[in-house]
């Protein structure tokens, strides 16, 4: 039965093996003008509006030209502790309510000793002028070593607020009427050692709280956002383990590939995650016991909200470092049960608990449910899971992602249609945790390029095509490690851009230069606190409509493949970062859509009928499209 060897279902596109595959070549041997697979020529998917004679470009790093001068500090170059390797995040949010997207970066310190000595780092804020030019603004005056950040309207007043966490700190920042982020109440645990105050004397033996990624969601659909606080491990800042864990003859060396490296997470104690219930005014109460009754601590690095069963409530996927991941199923009232094993997403397809780093959801196969990508450590592929009626199927190997990504240590991840062709791209930020990766025979490198792949999934056919950087100014070109990344349209052209927080270096701002495409940009908003009717507290949509699902059906020519595109409003995407709440639909060759449906967290469904692409629209719950503008 020879035919079965060829399988015939798998189409691998792009080059083989390793971190830097060669560009796919045409029959004549010259680099292909685009990385599209031959199987991707269906009329509905071709970005018809683009000028095929123009040189191909992708995400052009315009950080310096646009005034983004953030430079990350993440400890010492040698990385003596795991804290120094995890890097920082970035949040995309609208400050001042002027309709453009501003940036807030978290920041670390030059060393652990510097943190203890103080002063710690503040957040770094950059205001957008509306055209994508940034100006540094004063920070909120925090002091610490900051990792994860997430934006959302915590007090339902119509503007975006922020929660930021780090090593020994968790702060709420509420946006005031002047667009400033003002520190609010601190949702810290009662443990007096949980807080690390830079400059204050501290005894050894008391590891502080360590927050990595944060997720905002409305767990009980009361119209108020709650927070899942992902926490990492117990690291004693005064006497961190160096060289080995334990003592005496049974001490275990901290090593990787035979080289001494920083200790952890293996052999260290994970910190349990927490769940904070939103009150509605920007304050929170610790509701961990009720929300996470059987929680098992697991070195959380990323957490992302999604809707597992399509029942309208928000579930969570938690990416754990080195231990099984969690799929926390919401009972509808905000109490979660881990069903990762039964859903097939706890461990790899080979049954290995891998080092989950980042997670992003998106409808890769365009079947109306949320698939997801999960980044992992080097030697472990970035995993791709497709939603099915009874869980997920692991599509990693059928896409050839192991071959493509196993040498990479990937962090943040996005499933976003950057080129507007109607299929999602998979973007990952990469970079090893160990500087020793550059030594001989590690099979990987410390600095790693960011990667972007086109994905298509038609029936049983899978294609994966790596987008090679168009030139040295592409954010995909430099071999530099990055950690947190976020997506947002910074110059208002309707195309999603990508901001990268590079570890120990300047941030990159990848402006989308894929060319013109048919797009629709959608913003969903719910009722403000002031607009709410008194009484009912359940079945509400929050002011920024996190959790709203939008289904768009592109109009296609007769004979072309019909499909629907699903997107969900969430800001907690990737790793330690927060992306835009605006939804970016690429319509491929279609210049219009036949239907647009919004399923609000409250349970209400709005059918908005057909419409044209090339617009940016705002939909308010119960009121349809309340504003629209033509994209340039």
């Amino acid at each position: 039965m020879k035919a079965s060897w060829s399988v015939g279902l798998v189409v691998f596109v792009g080059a083989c093996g390793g971190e830097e595959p060669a560009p796919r070549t045409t029959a004549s041997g010259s680099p292909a003008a685009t990385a599209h697979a031959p199987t991707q020529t269906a009329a509905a998917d071709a970005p018809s509006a683009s000028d095929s004679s123009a040189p191909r470009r992708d995400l052009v790093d315009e950080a310096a030209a646009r005034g983004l001068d953030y430079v990350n500090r993440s400890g010492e170059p040698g990385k003596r502790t795991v804290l120094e390797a995890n890097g920082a995040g970035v949040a995309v949010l609208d400050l001042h309510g002027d309709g453009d997207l501003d940036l807030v970066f978290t920041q670390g310190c030059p060393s652990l000793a510097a943190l203890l000595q103080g002063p710690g780092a503040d957040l770094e804020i950059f205001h957008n002028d509306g055209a994508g030019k940034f100006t540094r603004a004063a920070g909120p005056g925090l002091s610490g070593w900051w990792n994860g950040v997430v934006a959302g309207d915590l007090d339902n007043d119509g503007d975006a607020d922020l929660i930021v966490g780090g090593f020994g700190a968790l702060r709420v920042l509420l946006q005031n009427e002047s667009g400033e982020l003002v520190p609010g109440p601190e949702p810290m645990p009662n443990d007096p050692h949980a807080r690390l105050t830079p400059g204050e004397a501290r005894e050894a033996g008391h590891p502080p709280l360590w927050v990595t990624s944060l997720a905002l969601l409305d767990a009980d659909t009361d119209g108020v956002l709650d927070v899942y606080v992902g926490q990492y491990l117990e690291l004693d800042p005064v006497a961190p383990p160096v060289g080995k864990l334990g003592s005496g003859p049974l001490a275990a060396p901290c090593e990787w590939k035979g080289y001494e490296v920083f200790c952890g997470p293996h052999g260290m104690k994970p910190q349990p995650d927490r769940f904070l219930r939103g009150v509605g005014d920007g304050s929170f109460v610790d509701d961990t016991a009720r929300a996470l009754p059987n929680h098992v601590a697991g070195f959380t690095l990323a957490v992302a909200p999604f809707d597992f069963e399509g029942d309208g409530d928000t579930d969570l996927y938690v990416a754990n470092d080195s231990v099984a991941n969690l799929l926390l199923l919401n009972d509808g009232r905000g109490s979660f049960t881990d069903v990762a094993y039964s859903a097939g997403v706890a461990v790899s397809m080979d049954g290995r608990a891998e080092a989950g780093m980042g997670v992003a959801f998106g409808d890769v196969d365009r079947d109306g449910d949320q698939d997801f990508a999960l980044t992992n450590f080097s030697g472990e592929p970035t995993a791709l899971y497709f939603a099915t009626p009874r869980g997920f199927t692991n599509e990693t190997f059928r896409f050839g992602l192991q071959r493509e990504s196993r040498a990479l240590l990937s962090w943040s991840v996005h499933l976003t249609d950057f080129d507007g062709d109607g299929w999602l791209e998979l973007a990952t930020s990469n970079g090893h945790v160990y500087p020793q990766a550059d030594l001989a025979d590690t099979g990987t490198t410390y600095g790693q390029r960011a990667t972007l792949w086109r994905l298509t999934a038609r029936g049983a056919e899978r294609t994966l095509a790596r987008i090679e950087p168009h030139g040295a100014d592409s954010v995909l070109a430099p071999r530099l490690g990055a950690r947190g990344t976020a997506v947002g349209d910074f110059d208002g052209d309707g195309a999603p851009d990508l901001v990268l927080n590079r570890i120990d270096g300047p941030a990159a701002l990848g402006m989308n230069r894929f060319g013109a495409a048919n797009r629709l940009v959608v913003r969903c908003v719910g009722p403000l606190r002031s607009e709410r009717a008194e009484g009912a507290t359940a079945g509400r949509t929050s002011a920024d409509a996190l959790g709203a699902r939008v289904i768009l059906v592109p109009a296609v020519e007769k004979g072309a493949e019909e499909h629907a595109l699903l997107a969900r409003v969430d800001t907690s995407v990737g790793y330690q970062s927060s992306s835009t709440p605006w939804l970016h639909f690429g319509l491929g060759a279609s210049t219009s859509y036949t239907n647009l449906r919004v399923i609000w967290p409250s349970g209400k469904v709005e059918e908005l009928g057909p419409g044209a692409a090339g617009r940016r629209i705002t939909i308010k719950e119960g009121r349809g499209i309340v504003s629209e503008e033509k994209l340039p």
Partner: protein
Amino acid sequence: MKRALRPLLVAFGVVGALEGALFAAGRAQTADVSSPAQRGEESKRIERERVERERELVERWRDTLLIDRPKEVLAEAEKHAADAPWNGEALALAARAAFMARGRDEALAWLARTPVAPETTAWIELERARIELESDELPKALALLLRDANERAPKLAPYPDAWLYTGRAWTRLGETARGAAFLARFVELAPFDVEAPSALHALAQEALARNDGAAATNYLRRADEHAKWQSYRRVRVLQVRESPDEPLPRLGLAQLWLQARDAERAKRVLAELLARCPEYAAGWFHLGEAERLSDALPAALEAYTKALEFEPEHVLARHNRGTIHRLAGRTSEARSDYERIVDGPRAADKTALNSHLALARLLAASGEPEAAQRRYARYRELGGAEALAP
């Protein structure tokens, strides 16, 4: 060197290993012998030593890869690159190290680099399949592993890895039910293989997919147990490499092999331990346990005796030695050992409880009922619950 230790260490290759080529059978190692019989014996000895050398090397390289040090394997492999023919399993491990450290092309180059002994070529074929599998070339991997896609057994069925790779390739292609049959066989063949937890997990997932919750739970439980065992093993191997002269890590490693009921592996580890710490009573005791597990009671007796030489109050060694005496019909020696425990300074220890009962039973069987009752009463006093009559 202690008399009892020498043969053991030679047998396990800890001492007496010949210097020089690893894989070239007999090269530069033939002693000057004259008669055909002597020559025959000599060549058998050389062959035994070669096999032992290769086994030791393969085991060490597997451990080295277990702790993720591919460059060490590569460095050693490079030194012996000119030897020929290689043992196929060793060459496959060198290629695996090359894959881990340098990528697919280097790994394939290693596999083609040197001829291998004909009886070991299967390892090369398996490693090729593994490389294809790890490169997402799933159909290619299956083509190497199976004669026909409908085959229910791999071409190299005696090799557990062939079952693992075939099961994994089918599973990765989404054919989980088909993969499960191969993975189940792999787990049967190699329950303590480093990949066993992974295979058990995959089996659990497949059981869940067909709604067999009980099977899934069972597989998951076993997967967790095996994963824990593997994780301890990895740490112990690391500790041994880190502190080679410390007895505890090697003892821990030997205990893990005893737990896996692999007495031969345990004996080899203990031989290494005792070569470094010949007066380490716990090492001798565990060697006795390993010998006992392989039904080598005289060797076990000798090992327990050595343990007692260095720690006369080692309760378990003395009890087990007494039991071997009793089984061999040497009642007075057995009685003497049991009495030494129950009348000794550790008589009230939990570990001594069985000795009270054993002595009581021995006395009863020897026609001393009163003494037996007295000893039995003491046994009950200390918390024993078994009846006097066995």
